């Protein structure tokens, strides 16, 4: 993977953890990360910093969520879980997959609420801990809202 093109996502680190966590680099097929509804999203990823700790499961998903004030909403568009020794070896430490986007919802950058799409990778370890990495992309071409 070309490090210049790859990006690290938002890694969710629990407040209580003191153990080092892996880094997940992910590259989208479109460098600008912008897609149209119904288009295929292809990603390549690489999980670094495992430090010899064997993952026991990996989840790959594409989802949208709302971000803003008030309660959040979320919709999982695609989900895969790999939890056997045979399947884990095929997807860790790196892999490629593709998903076809639905027609909605479109990404939206509002003031009170935003709609975001992301690819989420979640790694589970034998020790019981897990690590989540989210990589945001956009769907559609709705312009950002303007503060009144």
């Amino acid at each position, binding site marked *: 993977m070309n490090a210049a093109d790859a*990006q690290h996502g938002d890694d969710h680190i629990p407040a*209580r953890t003191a153990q080092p966590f892996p880094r997940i680099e992910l590259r989208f097929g479109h*460098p600008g990360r912008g897609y149209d509804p119904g288009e295929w999203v292809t990603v390549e990823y690489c999980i670094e910093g495992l430090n010899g700790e064997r993952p026991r499961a990996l989840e790959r998903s594409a989802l949208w969520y709302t*971000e*803003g*004030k008030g*309660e*959040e909403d979320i919709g999982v568009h695609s989900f895969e879980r790999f939890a056997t020794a045979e399947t884990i070896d095929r997807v860790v430490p790196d892999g490629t997959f593709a998903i076809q986007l639905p027609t909605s919802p479109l990404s939206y950058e509002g003031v009170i609420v*935003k709609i*975001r799409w992301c690819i989420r990778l979640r790694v589970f370890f034998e020790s019981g801990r897990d690590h989540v990495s989210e990589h945001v992309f956009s769907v559609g071409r709705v312009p950002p809202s303007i503060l009144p």
Partner: protein
Amino acid sequence: MLFDHFQLRRNPFATRYVASARLAPRDSRGRVLDLPAIVDRLGAIGGSGAIEGPHGTGKSTLLFHLSEVIAAESRPVVRIRMRSQGDALGVLLAMRQAPRGGLACIDSWELLGTVGRSMVRCMARGLGIGLMVTSHGPTDLPTLVSCRGSRALLESLVGQLPGHAEWFGTTIIPADLDAAIVEAGEDLRKAFDMLYDRFERSRAGAPR
């Protein structure tokens, strides 16, 4: 790069960043709470207790984190969040899932009403499980922790939000926290909502 665009458009005061699970619980001076010590105190006061405090002072956050500590000790924990008095039956049914020696964590204890609370306490005694609840004031259970909001706590929590070094001092300044506390009082959830709005306006270049 679109990724950088999203970094700029993220509002650190959005619910997903200030939600209970994300922020480490702290006292009114902003110091991290000793959760194991509080769990020990729960045992010392008889196994049941209440986390009390005004609206938006971190009760649910503390209840969540304490339940995680207890569950990590392999003690069975049942988590129940009440939204209305109609949830009382659900509470009783959920408590029956907890084995003897377990703990029922009930958010919004007052919603049970007098009769509901009496029934839950009775059932807890009969089942041999403890209760850890949140309430807006003193209750019929011993007080485990009193939560209070403050400027120091708000500043400490804001310091935990993502990208703090990038936007604090520019997009959000200390005077914004002062204004939020004046308006919201001890209700830090309201203060976060105000800072969310302030962040959006500041990012759009609106004058203070």
